[in-house]
């Protein structure tokens, strides 16, 4: 499988702030890749480097097999980009902007354009200055999704959309996936990424701290367990990877590293399980684990793979 985007050891500083601090990222061709992190983590900076708008201080980046800085315009014909902040020309209509951006990219599919306008419920005759943030974003989304390109780079594309429109957006991304288009979707909305993405990279302070499929990443997190046993539990406290253990008579409550789940189950089963509740980890937990101690400047965890 080839990679649409390969980035390694990317550094970018603005004065004394390090926006990117050795970032690695790989997006396989045909996958929907979630690029997850809070505001200011470096998502937009990475995307701008990939678009050749910023020049990296250090590191390698390859986009669709080319150099994003050297071959910018040539590569851009094969991709479409939706910025996080969409600003339109005040006296051009939405329809004009969609057509202009499409033509500069090498053409639009008019049928797809109409379909998108209808499903996003966007009026293309309004002037740029009269659109709300959500509608400006729709203009950029229609222009991007109606283009016949190999790669979509979307920077927090749903941040101004209402839940109904978010759903429409998800349907379109599902369709894109079936057409084997590659999508880099930056977001801080976990449910969106969880629902749409094949693989995820979590970025924190200019570095990717986790990357993999959702299943891979879940593996890293803790499952919370509540069990009622036939007899008093035994030896659980000595198992590796068991946290926040509470034992009341025959009841056990704990959190266990997903990797150690099997060992814990065996130990519990030895005492006879009467009832068991296991809550799978959510992406949110994984995310919080990386960010809750941000102020303490915790060490980034070892990446999987």
């Amino acid at each position: 499988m080839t990679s649409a985007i390969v980035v390694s050891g990317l550094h970018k500083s603005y004065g004394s702030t390090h926006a990117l601090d050795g970032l690695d990222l790989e997006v396989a061709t045909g996958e929907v890749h979630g690029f997850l992190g809070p505001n200011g983590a470096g998502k937009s900076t990475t995307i701008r480097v990939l678009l050749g708008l910023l020049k990296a201080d250090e590191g390698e980046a390859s986009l669709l097999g080319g150099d994003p800085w050297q071959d910018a315009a040539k590569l851009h014909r094969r991709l479409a980009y939706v910025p996080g902040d969409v600003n339109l020309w005040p006296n051009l209509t939405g329809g004009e902007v969609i057509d202009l951006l499409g033509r500069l990219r090498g053409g639009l599919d008019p049928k797809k354009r109409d379909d998108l306008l209808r499903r996003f419920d966007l009026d293309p005759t309004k002037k740029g200055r009269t659109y709300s943030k959500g509608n400006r974003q729709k203009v950029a989304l229609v222009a991007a999704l109606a283009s016949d390109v190999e790669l979509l780079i979307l920077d927090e594309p749903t941040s101004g959309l209402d839940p109904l429109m978010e759903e429409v957006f998800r349907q379109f991304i599902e369709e894109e996936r079936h057409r084997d288009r590659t999508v880099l979707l930056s977001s801080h909305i976990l449910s969106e990424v969880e629902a749409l993405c094949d693989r995820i990279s979590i970025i924190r302070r200019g570095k990717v701290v986790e990357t993999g499929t959702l299943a891979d990443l879940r593996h890293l997190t803790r499952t919370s367990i509540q069990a009622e046993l036939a007899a008093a539990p035994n030896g659980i406290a000595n198992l590796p990877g068991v946290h926040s253990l509470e034992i009341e008579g025959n009841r056990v409550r704990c959190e266990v590293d997903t990797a150690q789940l099997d060992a814990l189950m065996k130990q519990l089963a030895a005492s006879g399980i009467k009832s068991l509740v296991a809550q799978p980890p959510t992406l949110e937990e994984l995310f919080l684990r990386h960010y809750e101690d941000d102020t303490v400047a915790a060490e980034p965890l070892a990446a999987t793979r």
Partner: protein
Amino acid sequence: MKDFAGTATLVRLALRRDRIMLPVWIVVFVSMAAGSAKASIDLYPDVASRVEAANTTNSSPALVSLYGRIFDPTSLGEVSLFKLTSFGALLVALLAAIVVVRHTRGEEESGRLELLSAGVLGRYASLTAALIVSAGTVIVMGLLTALSLIGTGLPASGSFAFGLTWAAAGLTFAGVGAVTAQLTEGARTANGLTAVVLGVSYVLRALGDSASDGGARWISWLSPIGWAQQIRPFAGDRWIVALLPLALMVVLVAAAFALVRRRDVGAGLVRPRPGPATASPSLRSPLALAWRLQRGSLYAWGFAFLLLGFIVGNIASNVDGFVSSDSAKELVEKLGGVNGITDAFLSAEMGMLGLLASAFGIQAALRLRSEETALRAEPLLATGVTRVQWMASHVLMALLGTAVLVLVGGLGSGISSGASLGNMGRQVPRMLAAAAVQLPAIWVVTGLVVILFGFAPKLVTAAWVLFGAFLLIGQFGPIFDLPQGLMNVSPYAHTPRLPGGDFSATPVILVSAIAALLLAAGFTGFRRRDVG
């Protein structure tokens, strides 16, 4: 009172944002008045010379319509400053209105006001603060202008009346800006509307002033600029007339407040019309977009240049009579003319058109930066458009736009001066050539914007400062006998004095080469730097 909550904070915010712009403008206006007075006072040592100059001015309808009538031919102050009375009032009025629109509609359009409105901010706070800042600026400007005129030795009463003339026009048009800011959703459109009102006011005044003795002089009294002028500084100092523009300001401000109450934040009273749902087939390149964005401004400037050209050419036929005194002839020749007063006048005025066109060029090239900071360049540069193509689109608008402007001005002045001198066939090509030789210096200034944009984008507005410096060197250098080496720094110093003067190709080629170098360097810089 809660409708006004937060006004003081907004005033401080506005002063913080304009802490450079407003003082610079005040200094420019004050020194323009004082400099002009100082330079002219020596030209008219006695009453006879003043009466002569004033009578020739008053007998030329073109001059009267441009600057207004001289009411008291014996008054040193009026004869020295008549060119700045209503013309200066026009500029002060423009500034006052722009300041109001900038801090009301401009803030609203950008969405920043909404951010603040969510805090403790009364609905009238933004308009009140903008009016306070604008009115404060023109009042300070009026006072300092008066003091500086007294400093040049002119009578105190007349000096204050002159300051009041400017301030009154400024206050009225602060009111006009307050109203137009409520009408439209875009600050540019609001400024455009203000400019129309201002233009109509100036034209009404010009029509009334140039009417014959028994004619329709009352038309001037329909114009706020006419009222300001009728205060007649140094010629009677009719303070009472100032009540008219002040009363109009009160009415306009009251209207603006009433309008604020009737509309939503962000909305205008004039609903924008829907436009086409698809782009026209020609909108398919960055240049087509740049043309679309800038054509409105180019049309307006082009019309103004054609008009200016006609006026200049028309005045040229009267110049011989106008500067009949020796000292005035000397002055015109000092201002850049050679061989014949008419040619000298035309060549000086073409120089003025060149300066004005440079301002268009700066503004057009600065679009690069405003598009970049508004994040509108980014989506374009993320398509198949190269950086050079995108940058070239707006640079071409600046280069070709300035060329169109000076040539249109040259054509207008060639036709009207040719018609009144009776040699159209000769005069039109001469004036077109005089227009064309302005271009290298204009393009150097455009090149300065471009090179700053390429290497120091945050400093790109410094191009205005450099342009202002060239302007000052050119206007005051000969009067204050600055060393030639310093004056040669200005690209305008090397423009051949056409029509009439000697044409030598060397400076034209050299200045053009400098412009080309600046442009090329700017493109190289932009290709290498970060966008955003």
